[in-house]
């Protein structure tokens, strides 16, 4: 006989699957429970795995090395100033710092880690032996035309129009390929779920009953 946990899991899985037919009370129940439990899970997760070890324990165990974390805590508390009318504007400071820092990280990561290396790798010799030359030409044309499609400050007419139309064809081939490729991953998830329902719940159940 499947254990109680498997029964709960199987019931909730089936409740979600019924949504494929139509909205119904089972789905609504599962959906609401899911939202609540998920939020509760992250309360446990964030307090146990971030606030406790990275802030509270760090301060308690070695204050002299980690005193700066007090400011991190203050910034975190600052987010709640928005509930106090008079100082509500101060809540924007931690938000601004958070956004600012990661935006800076993004700026560098995009330019240094994406734009330049990817451009470098597009610099291919068009004189490669055999078919490789054709594929290199295709790669260069593809990358360049897609980039030209994204030109905003010129109307897409004339040569730019042709280039951007070529670009959009490349994009379409790529989207099709990505879509087709993805089917596989999604089916894997379905397999995982059916595997659970059939092998963990249904088969033991049948064996127990008959």
């Amino acid at each position: 006989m499947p254990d109680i946990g498997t029964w709960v899991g199987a019931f909730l899985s089936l409740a979600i699957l019924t949504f494929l037919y139509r909205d119904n009370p089972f789905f609504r129940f599962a959906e609401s429970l899911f939202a609540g439990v998920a939020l509760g899970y992250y309360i446990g997760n964030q307090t146990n795995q971030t606030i406790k070890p990275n802030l509270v324990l760090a301060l308690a165990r070695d204050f002299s090395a980690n005193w700066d974390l007090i400011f991190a805590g203050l910034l975190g508390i600052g987010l709640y100033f928005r509930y106090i009318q008079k100082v509500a504007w101060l809540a924007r400071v931690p938000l601004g710092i958070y956004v600012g820092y990661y935006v800076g990280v993004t700026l560098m990561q995009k330019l240094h880690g994406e734009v330049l290396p990817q451009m470098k790798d597009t610099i291919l010799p068009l004189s490669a032996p055999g078919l490789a030359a054709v594929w290199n030409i295709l790669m260069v044309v593809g990358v360049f035309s897609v980039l030209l499609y994204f030109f905003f400050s010129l109307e897409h007419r004339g040569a730019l129009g042709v280039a951007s139309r070529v670009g959009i064809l490349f994009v379409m081939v790529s989207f099709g390929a990505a879509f087709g490729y993805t089917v596989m991953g999604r089916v894997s998830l379905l397999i995982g779920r059916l595997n659970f329902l059939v092998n963990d719940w249904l088969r033991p159940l049948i064996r127990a009953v008959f």
Partner: protein
Amino acid sequence: MRRQLPLVMTFIAGIIPVIALFSPHPIVVNIAARADRWLVIVYAFALLLGVVSVVQSNSRKIARRDKGWPYAVVLLTGLTVMGGFGFLGNFGIFGGITTTPDGRPTPFQWSYSNVFLPLQATMFSLLAFYMASASFRAFRARNLAAGLLMVSALFVMFGRIPTGEAVPFVPMITEWIMDNPNAAAQRGIIIGAALGAASMSLRVILGIERSHLGLGRGE
């Protein structure tokens, strides 16, 4: 002050990682490392903002007996029970949040594996069905672009399964589509989007783009 301070702080925080990329000096490295540590903590604090909002809106729903209010009860129950296990786990009550010393799951862990996970995985697996209905409807060769989309999707779908691989040239063509036109377009999109993201980032650092702070935009 009210307008300027958040923007100034954005700017100061924003140039730290820029400098850190170019400077190996321990002082810079240390500042960047501290900033990383700080912000993880700030983010953890933010979760409560969401919790407050959820509790407020759902208790309002129950108090007013809005349509579907019993589901709000379900939600709050789930939140209280799971959140309670999780929060009390900080103090070792209910054995924490992972496993008890003898290897059995704590209530938190049990709910995670038997409630949270099945729900999450099943919701995710719905995608297999949606992919089928979306492709049935969207993959029609209405024009050249749509035709290319469909043909490349069909090739890749077919070429990635063993049956397709057994057909001569199909795996080769699939691999070729992925490596050439696909990689080229992806690269073009990545470069373009990265430039756009970099420019957007710069606008934020400079305080030109500020609608996320509720400060309006422009000058």
